[in-house]
């Protein structure tokens, strides 16, 4: 806990730096002065458009999505007592994808596709919840198994939809499935969800630390295990559903960011949760900036870059730790 102020300061700076970089850099070269002018609406209208309407919303959306996925990942890992869990392990991204693809198949507008994705994610949550409940009590193992199976089911459904869709729908569907931040419209709802969720999750941090020791031990120390687990499950689902609705399913961040932070900062959820929000946001913003500028005008899928950035970083940290 004593590391919290220092950690937040460092990660906060990193987050700010990544946002500034995202706004300053693009496939159209702008000097910092021009970027600054564009930010305030001065200077040529082109610059204003580029900065205010293209780069800034996209940077904020990337930050929100990265933060949402990282916090969801941290919560999932505690919920399932498993460091290998990620936000999608319980079928959330699969459900969202099925929702989105069915909406595309039905030919509805894009706003409805996003809405359908959100509903699909939450539907998946309820299905896994209901199935794992079974005959009374469920354990993290049972939840995990149910989630993995449901996720596989969604995967098969996605393949089926892709197979029967008319060819002209396929590019749009694949674009959605790969995850892309050019989807993003307004970043404010996602940012609001991220901020609120992190703030509300923080007081649960110590209980989560205890829960991570095992449900019996936690119960013996006064933690309301069932209530806490459901809260965490719903929170993680909501965060993931929001992230997937904004940008499709972007992988890797939810699994690796909490892990990397744990290697450096230890296991106190009161530090890990806010740190995940900042670090996940910074990483995805950086990755998205690279994705749209590295080989401009060619645009890369951001999931490729997150892996390229995250894998070496993670391996380095793993190597350095004991």
């Amino acid at each position: 806990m004593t590391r919290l102020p220092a950690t937040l300061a460092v990660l906060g700076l990193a987050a700010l730096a990544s946002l500034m970089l995202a706004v300053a850099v693009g496939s159209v070269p702008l000097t910092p002065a021009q970027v600054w002018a564009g930010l305030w609406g001065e200077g040529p209208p082109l610059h204003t458009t580029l900065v205010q309407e293209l780069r800034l919303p996209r940077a904020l959306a990337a930050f929100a999505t990265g933060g949402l996925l990282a916090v969801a990942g941290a919560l999932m890992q505690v919920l399932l007592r498993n460091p290998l869990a990620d936000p999608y392990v319980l079928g959330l991204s699969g459900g969202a994808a099925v929702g989105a693809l069915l909406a595309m198949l039905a030919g509805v507008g894009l706003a409805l596709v996003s809405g359908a994705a959100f509903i699909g994610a939450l539907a998946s949550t309820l299905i896994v919840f209901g199935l794992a409940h079974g005959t009374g009590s469920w354990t993290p193992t049972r939840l995990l198994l149910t989630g993995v199976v449901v996720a596989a089911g969604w995967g098969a459904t996605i393949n089926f939809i892709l197979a029967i869709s008319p060819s002209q729908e396929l590019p749009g569907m694949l674009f959605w499935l790969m995850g892309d931040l050019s989807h993003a419209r307004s970043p404010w709802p996602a940012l609001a969800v991220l901020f609120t969720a992190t703030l509300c999750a923080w007081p649960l941090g110590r209980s989560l630390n205890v829960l991570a020791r095992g449900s019996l031990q936690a119960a013996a120390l006064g933690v309301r295990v069932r209530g806490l687990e459901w809260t965490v499950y719903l929170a993680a689902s909501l965060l993931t559903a929001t992230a997937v609705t904004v940008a499709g399913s972007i992988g890797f961040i939810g699994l690796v960011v909490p892990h990397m932070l744990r290697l450096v900062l230890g296991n106190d959820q009161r530090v890990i949760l806010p740190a995940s929000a900042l670090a996940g946001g910074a990483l995805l913003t950086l990755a998205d900036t690279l994705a749209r500028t590295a080989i401009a005008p060619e645009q890369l899928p951001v999931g490729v870059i997150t892996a390229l950035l995250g894998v070496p970083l993670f391996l380095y940290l793993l190597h350095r730790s004991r």
Partner: protein
Amino acid sequence: MATNVQHHSGDARTPWWTGLLAAGLVLAPMSGVMAADPICVEDDRNERVCLSQPAERVISLSPHITEQLFAVGAGETIVGTVGFSDYPPEAESIPRIGSHDRIDVEQVVAKSPDLVIAWGSGNPSVQVERLEALGLPVYVSEPRGFADVADELERLGQLTGRSDAGREAARAFRGEWEALQTRYAERSPVSTYYQIWDQPLMTVNDEHLIGQAIRLCGGDNVFGDSSRLTPRVDREAVLGADPEAILASGRGEEREDWVEEWRRWSGSTAVQRDNLYFIPPSLLQRHTPRILEGTRHLCEALDEARDRRPEQE
């Protein structure tokens, strides 16, 4: 015009203000013509795209659109296009603004275009909507057949102020198209299988552009009545249908692997009569005037297949 008016106003028998009235009546609609948007065209979404003057800075979001623009003489108006815009050769030097399935929106905006021509099924609609939201005029092209190629040439000609060239190109296209139809459509049907991909095996139905070309050439596509535009089939289905002619595109312009693959099945009619044909994919894949060249190849191939029939048939 003005001199005529003054001439009228000089006539003694009409009141002095008639001239002014006539001037006003003549000049008013003229000034209206100067200021109102004269170029309005319906795109393939059935939406009206209106420009106040012919487009001079065009963004093309598909290789076929680039080709079409060149065909109406508007190639020099293109300020940015997507990857694979390789025909005509001059198109290679046009600056790129991403790929058709992932557009660099920033670059598009930076080019300050006055018209963006998008590809309905090939561009991510999210990004096309973004461009429209930023205030750019967007024309969506989604051609479905031969007739659409000619229509589009006319519409693109209008949008770029090259209506004459557009009409001429469309006329030439329709003429050649009709000529091919007259020559080949009435010939005896040749059962045909056209392969557009090998893993998985993919073919076309009658609604597909290639399917329409096959019909034009008097071919009978064995998978023509499939409900999907590009059905996935298996070898058994093709061998069961036992087409008279097997045509394939291949991945590149020279490779004939896909066609050669079929030689193994020596029992099939097409293999026995050596009716295995390769058509360079670039000639049959885009809704541009080159489709006629590809169709001609196709018709000649099917004609050869007719010639190779045994005497009794």
